[in-house]
Structure formats: structure tokens, C-alpha cells
């Protein structure tokens, strides 16, 4: 009964204490004509055994296919300790640490998380996390508008090589405040942003440049040149990075001569299961000089009245419950539970372990690319160096191939035709450390068969150059 513990004796005594004769009487202030009828659209209740059976059936329908899709969500090994600890009730069923004395566990954990993320990204400070990587890009864009006081244009350059969903989310979130996003085209040969394309913005007011490393295609951008261009033109740099890659790639804080100004990304690779897209968490780190422009919660270390160290939420005057209409964001929470998982994951991995995850994922993707490009009609789409994810170019239509693979329990990658129609037959693939050589051979074998059963796509042309939107 709805997890309600009351006995009928309790109810009678409680009603007597209130001085009413029925529960119904407690709703007397609500106008009669508004009272709800029986909720026929809600099915009858299930007990735990019944819901368990139903959910197991539903889960079975989804199966456990062999997955070679990346595109912003990556299947990494998650050590057993991560979720065994994260789902402890003391983490799982606590709330935002408003009462610091009763929340030192959560607060200290966030402080440790902030330390790890700041160091991983090569920045000075981190917040306690945002909803996900996409919303972090949106928040970083709004933050850049606040932080770059010299710029009045609210114009943000966002290359077409940034995750297409991130670009959409940033637009949906920030355009209501007058922020404009302009797309920077990419080189269809290299798969990287075109530094030359930035020349059309010479002499113009640009608020910020977004740079994703590795980019959506897995290609490594020339982050130093792009960062220096932005800074030379009065724009801030928003780095969008993959935390696994940061174990081995130059951190945003060291990009170019001055380093990026804000670093954000999707935290999911750090111990968070794929889980159909969430809950994940977005991270956001920056320079100390912009700390008051940051959105979201921040934890600081301080002393208690006896001089002992302790942790508390700080810089709260930026936030909605104090600043109301003038807050840096309307965000209240962070993704605390996912930050818990990520902090435990990073502790178990350490720098050396994370480096191995990066190395293994990259090695498996190279192995996958090498196995698949041995198939006639399959080649790498771009010449640029990539990290742990790559775009293949197929001379057959991608959608039916993926459907054929899926029917054999293999998710062969992401068809790029929706987001990049100019790239014909493009397939984004990824293998992480979770894939074995046997898995890769299985995929290659299945793809060979599927391709031989399909007519060749019109003409295996070189992709046309993309144009700016």
C-alpha cells in the first residue's frame, strides 16, 4: 500500500489529535469541483514480485547486443566497487548537502571530485557537476558571455565537428537569451575544423570559440592553433573534452599559449553505465578568475568553530535561491550520485589506470578499423589522426547494413547521414577496452557477409566539401 506504514489505529489516533473525523476532511479547502476522479489511465498496482517479472521481460526485449557505437557515450569496464559503494543508502538517498554538518561525506567527496576534475583538465577550479555533457556546453556558452566582458556580440563559434546534439542543446538553452551560435565548417579530407575558415571572422567581435577534442568524428583537432586564434581575437575558448582521452591528451589548461578558459564534457566514461543516455553528468572547470561566473554548486574547505577542517557549499550568492532572477543559472542540483560513481572510478583507476583505459580503447579501435577496412568497399573517411573512435566510408548504404548487423546482435556504429548528409556512406565506429579481438572478428565477419548481400551505393564518391550553415 504505497509504502505507507500506518495502521488503522494510528490513523484514528492521528485524526483525533488533529480534530477531524476523516482524512477527507483535511482536503476541505480544495474546491469540490476540482476534486479528481478515479485514475482509470493508471493500471492496477503490482507487488514487488510482479513488477520484477515485468521489468525482466522488458529487459529481455532489449537484449544485450555487442555494441560498437560511441558518439558521446562509451561502454567502459566499471569496477564492481563503483556501484556497490555508490548505491549505499547514505549516498543514494541523501539530498543536496544544505546541512553541512550532516553531509560531510557528500561534501568531501565533491571536494575530491573537484580536485580530480580540475587536475584532469589542467584548470584551477571545478564545479560540483551539471546535468550532462550537452547541457554543460550550453552552460559554458552562457558563462562565456558573462565572463568575456569586452565582447558585446554574444556570438559563439561552434564548429560542425562538435557533437550535433551538443550544438542543438546549446541553441535550445541559450538562444532565448540572445546568444547566437555560428557554425565553423570542417575539412572533409582531414575531418578537423578548418582554421582557415576562421579568417572570415577577422576584426569581428566573437565572444567564444568552442573546440571539441577529440571531435565528434574522433579526429584530433589542432587545439593549439585554434586556441591561439581565439585569444588573439578577444574570444574565450570553451574546450569540450572526453575525460578518458585526457589521461593521454594535452589538457585544455595547456592548449595554445594561454590555455582554454572553460573546459566541459560528458562525464559518463568515468564509471557511469550507458543506461540509454542517462543519468550521466556534465563537468565544468575553469580559471580561478572566472569562478564567480560558474553555474552550479561548488564545495569549499573551511574550518569549524573549533578550528577543525570541514566542507561546505560555498559561493552560493551566485545561485538561484539567493540571486533569484539574477542567478548565474537556474540549476539547483548537480548529478551527485554520478559524481560519486566517477570519483570512486577515478580513485580506482588513478592516472596510470586511466591511461591504460585510454590506450586499450584506442588500440581496440585501431584493431577494429584495421579489420573493417580490409573489407572491400570500406575505408577510413578521414586522413587526420583519431583517438578511440573513427569514421568509416562505405560504398553501400549504411542503414540496411546496420539493420542486418543488428538482427545478428551487433550494433555496428552510428549512421552519420542524418547529421552530416554531405558525408555519404559514413559510419562512426568505436571499440573500447571492453571489446576483444574475437568481438572485432565477429563484427568484421558479419559486415563482410552483409555487404556482399547488398548492392553498391550509387557511386563511391569522395565526399563533397561541407559548407558553413
Amino acid at each position: 500500500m504505497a509504502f505507507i506504514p500506518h495502521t488503522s489505529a494510528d490513523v484514528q489516533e492521528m485524526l483525533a489529535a488533529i480534530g477531524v473525523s476523516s482524512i477527507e476532511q483535511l482536503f476541505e479547502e480544495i474546491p469540490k469541483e476540482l476534486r479528481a476522479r478515479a485514475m482509470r489511465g493508471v493500471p492496477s498496482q503490482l507487488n514487488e514480485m510482479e513488477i520484477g517479472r515485468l521489468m525482466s521481460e522488458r529487459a529481455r526485449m532489449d537484449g544485450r547486443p555487442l555494441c560498437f557505437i560511441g558518439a558521446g557515450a562509451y561502454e567502459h569496464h566499471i569496477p564492481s566497487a563503483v556501484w556497490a559503494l555508490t548505491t549505499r543508502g547514505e549516498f543514494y538517498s541523501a539530498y543536496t548537502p544544505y546541512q553541512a554538518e550532516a553531509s560531510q561525506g557528500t561534501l568531501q567527496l565533491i571536494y575530491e571530485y573537484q580536485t580530480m576534475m580540475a587536475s584532469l583538465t589542467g584548470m584551477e577550479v571545478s564545479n560540483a557537476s551539471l546535468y550532462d555533457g550537452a547541457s554543460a556546453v550550453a552552460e559554458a556558452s552562457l558563462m562565456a558571455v558573462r565572463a568575456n566582458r569586452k565582447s558585446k556580440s554574444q556570438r559563439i563559434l561552434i564548429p560542425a565537428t562538435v557533437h550535433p546534439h551538443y550544438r542543438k542543446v546549446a541553441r535550445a538553452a541559450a538562444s532565448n537569451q540572445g546568444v547566437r551560435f555560428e557554425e565553423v565548417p570542417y575539412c572533409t579530407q582531414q575531418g578537423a575544423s578548418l582554421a582557415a575558415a576562421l579568417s572570415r571572422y577577422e576584426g569581428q567581435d566573437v565572444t567564444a570559440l568552442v573546440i571539441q577534442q577529440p571531435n565528434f568524428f574522433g579526429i584530433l583537432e589542432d587545439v593549439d592553433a585554434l586556441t591561439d586564434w581565439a585569444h588573439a581575437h578577444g574570444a574565450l575558448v570553451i574546450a569540450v573534452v572526453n575525460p578518458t582521452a585526457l589521461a593521454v591528451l594535452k589538457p585544455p589548461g595547456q592548449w595554445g599559449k594561454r590555455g582554454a578558459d572553460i573546459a566541459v564534457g560528458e562525464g559518463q566514461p568515468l564509471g557511469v553505465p550507458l543506461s540509454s543516455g542517462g543519468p550521466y553528468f556534465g563537468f565544468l572547470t575553469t580559471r580561478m578568475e572566472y569562478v564567480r561566473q560558474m553555474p552550479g554548486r561548488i564545495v569549499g574547505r573551511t574550518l569549524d568553530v573549533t578550528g577543525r577542517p570541514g566542507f561546505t557549499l560555498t559561493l552560493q550568492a551566485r545561485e538561484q535561491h539567493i540571486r533569484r532572477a539574477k542567478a548565474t543559472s537556474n540549476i539547483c542540483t548537480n548529478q551527485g550520485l554520478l559524481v560519486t560513481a566517477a570519483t570512486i572510478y577515478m580513485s580506482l583507476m588513478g592516472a596510470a589506470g586511466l591511461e591504460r583505459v585510454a590506450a586499450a580503447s584506442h588500440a581496440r579501435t585501431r584493431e577494429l578499423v584495421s579489420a573493417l577496412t580490409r573489407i572491400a568497399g570500406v575505408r577510413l573517411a578521414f586522413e587526420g589522426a583519431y583517438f578511440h573512435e573513427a569514421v568509416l566510408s562505405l560504398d553501400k548504404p549504411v542503414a540496411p547494413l546496420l539493420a542486418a548487423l543488428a538482427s545478428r546482435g551487433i550494433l555496428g556504429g552510428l549512421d552519420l547521414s542524418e547529421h552530416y548528409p554531405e558525408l555519404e556512406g559514413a559510419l562512426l565506429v568505436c571499440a573500447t577496452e571492453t571489446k576483444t579481438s574475437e568481438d572485432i572478428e565477429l563484427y568484421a565477419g558479419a559486415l563482410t557477409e552483409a555487404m556482399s548481400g547488398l548492392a553498391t551505393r550509387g557511386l563511391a564518391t569522395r565526399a563533397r566539401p561541407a559548407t558553413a550553415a
Partner: protein
Amino acid sequence: MHSREKVIFEYSRPGRGATDQWPHEEGSALADLPEGIRRTGRPLLPEVSELDVVRHFTRLSQLNFSIDTHFYPLGSCTMKYNPKACNQYAMLPEFLGRHPLAPESHGQGFLACLYELQEMLREVTGMQGVALSPMAGAHGEFAGVAMIRAYHRSRGDLARNEIIVPEAAHGTNPATATMCGCVVREIPVDAQGDVDLEALRAAVGPQTAGIMLTNPSTLGVFERRIEEVARIVHAAGGLLYYDGANLNAILGKVRPGDMGFDVMHMNLHKTFSTPHGGGGPGAGAVGVGARLLPFLPIPLVGKSASPEGERYRWLAEQDLPQSIGRLSGFMGNAGVLLRAYIYMRMLGREGMSQVGEYATLNANYLLARLRQVGFEAAYPERRASHEFIITVKRQARELGVTAMDFAKRLLDQGFHAPTTYFPLLVPECLLIEPTETESRQTLDAFVAAMEQILSEAMQEPEHVTGAPHTMPVRRLDDVRAAKQLDLTWKPTAQS
């Protein structure tokens, strides 16, 4: 409770690691990466064993209060029991392992749950359509106000950019309006906690985009003239936004759609009992009336008939060309949605109205008992909803013991503190929300603790103002925290 746990970095020893968790590959596998983009120095992550990690984070967890360990009557937050089944069955390996971009053929089970969740939420709120992707209450608010704006714009009604909020509103309401490019206009509430209708009539006009209301309000009372409020705002051409923070109070009893609201968000982590996780993840599903259906954020889950039976599919831009767009990278906090689905199925139609009934019973009982032992209700003439406000302004004035002091002393007694100093309208207030899942015996124990603190406040007030005494730390210096910012651990200074 033990008092302190070292920072994880203090356990670190060079060369130690949880190596059983690491892949075999060495850095040599990265030889093909260009030199200039490689990382040169290692990040500051701890070098610790798996057992170090397990002990450290277990000890940290033990420094927390949580629903699983303590009564947590935090007003406005609905800290009710999070059933274990919701966690277990949302974490089946197939659900956890499902890639967000996996094809619909490998997601019919997951999509069926989401579709049915949309349908159930529609039914309990009286709305015409529901979108599940917003990831928190504030995110849902954003979606709602963005839809209101999109609606007016689609009609060429470009001047409507003012959002009205009562002065006692949650801070997110005005912050959201600003994020949507709107201007905020605050209106007062009367002495009984209802919206001041005269002020509302004076505030509405051709510039009104809409009004954001919580009902029951943040003052813990039902807005009795809600139908009149709706008439005034609608007549002026504005829309009504329902802040679902207090939906638990009326679940199964009144539906926002029937009250005249055009758009709302639901805090699934409150009303539908998904875990708060130390401050998230939540889920802020939005519901809309017919006028706003075309503007819902994507993706939605749709259902169609096919030769093999019913098929569930994603609805995106091509299905909703007027949508306010995409608000999350993939599908919001999908795992949270599954937990809410399981909870709703376990409640069923029979349990749904019991939630509102017993939440209200518990709140009114607790209020009656607290008044009995000497506490002052902020709105003594009113029926409490699922929460209520007491004010200790008399104790603050006469004894120098404030709401904050009561809150801190409660921690010593093993109770999480209620919400303090919100709403700002009521001085020295405690906003108390017991929820329906607490037993009468727990409520009685809380009353006894409050009664004891009250007598301490009279006999030895410094014991209360110096609280807490038994927690891992005493009161913390917030001024120092904000002035001498220490936001990351630094090895040289403190190791």
C-alpha cells in the same frame, strides 16, 4: 558517527593501484598519436588500492544523513522512502548496457516503459502531453517557460515577455524566467497565504507571458482561489505554469490540468520517489495542455501499430517541427525515469491517491502536535497541505535562539533539519514536510526532540546556539569558505 576521514589523496602511495581493474595495454599503444597533442604530466589522481577505496568511501558515506538512516523532513523536497525494487529493476544489465543510440529494435522494452510513464503522468496531472527529457525540476521549468514563449511567438504575439511570480516563489522561478529571456514581475500574497488577486489584476496585461505558481504554495497551503487566478491570467492572454514541487500534496486528489494550468513540470525525484543521490540526478518531466503540444521538447516516445504488433519509436524534429528543441544529450535521466515508472506501477491507481492523503495526514498531525508542545504555526487558520511552516520568531527575539539553531540541534537528536529560512516571507521559519512514508511513531519522536530543544532553549540557550555537538564537525565558517577559497586539495601544502 566517527569524526573525520582523510582526503583520498592522503592515502596515496607512489606505485600503488587497483591494478586488477586496469586493462593490460601500456601507453605504447598510443604511439600513432601526434607528439604535440599528448599529455606530458600526469593528472593528480590518487594511487590507492581497491580496499583503500572501499574503506574511504564507505567511511565518507557514514558521515551523511540520508533517508535510509534518518527522518529527513526537508520541506519542499519530499524526502520519502525510495523503494529498493525501483533501484534493482532499473539496474538490470540490459537496461544499464543499452547504448542511447541503439536502434529501436533493441529498445522496445525500455521504450515501452517510457511510453507508459508518459501516459500515467498525463493521467495523474490532467495534461494532454508529457515529455520526459528534462533532467531536474529547474530544467523542466526552463522547458515550460520556453514553451510559453514559443507559443506566444508562434502567434506573432511578440510583446509577451513578462512572467509573474508570487513573492514567496522558489528562487528557480525567477531564475528560469531570466534564462528564457523574460522579465520577472513579483506580486504579493495576502495574510492567509493566498495570491493577492487585486495585485494580480493590476499586474496582467498585453505584456504578460504567464504566471508561475506552486499549489499548494510554498507556504504549505492550498491556493483556494486558483480558478479565479486562472480566469484572470487567461483573460489577459497569459498562460499558467504549475511548479510541480508540491505535487505530492495533491497526488490523486486534484489535477493541475483541472485547475486550469497550461503547462507544468513534475519532480519525479520528489513525487515519484526516485533517489536524490546527494543532490541529483532528478528528473523534471513536463506536461502540457493542448495549446502547447506542438512545442514539447524532444525526444518523445510514440507508439504505432505494425504487422508484428505495437512498436514504440522515438519522436524527434520531423514529428514536432515546432518543438523548443533538444534539452539533453540523449534521453534525459533515462535511468531515473525507469525508477519512477516502477514506483508508479507499484502504487497503481489504488496507491496514487493514498500518497496525497497520507502525506497530508502526516503533515497535519505533526503540525497539531508541534502546536500542542508550544510551537507557533505561521498560518494557524489554515489546513496544512503536505508540509507546513512554524516560526520561532518569538524564541529568536526572547531567547536569542534562531531557526538555524533549532535546525542544528535537531541534527544532534538524530533528525535531519527541516528547510530553514524559506520562504523568506516568514521570519525565523522552519518548513517541515514529513511525507507519507513515515510512521506515527517517527513523527512522535520528532515532536519529542523539538519539545526538548524548546526547553533547552529556555534553560540553557547556549547549548542550542552552539549546536551541533555530536556531528563530525561543528558549525562551519562560511565566511572563511567564501573568502579564502579552498576548492581543490593541494599536495604541497597539506600532505
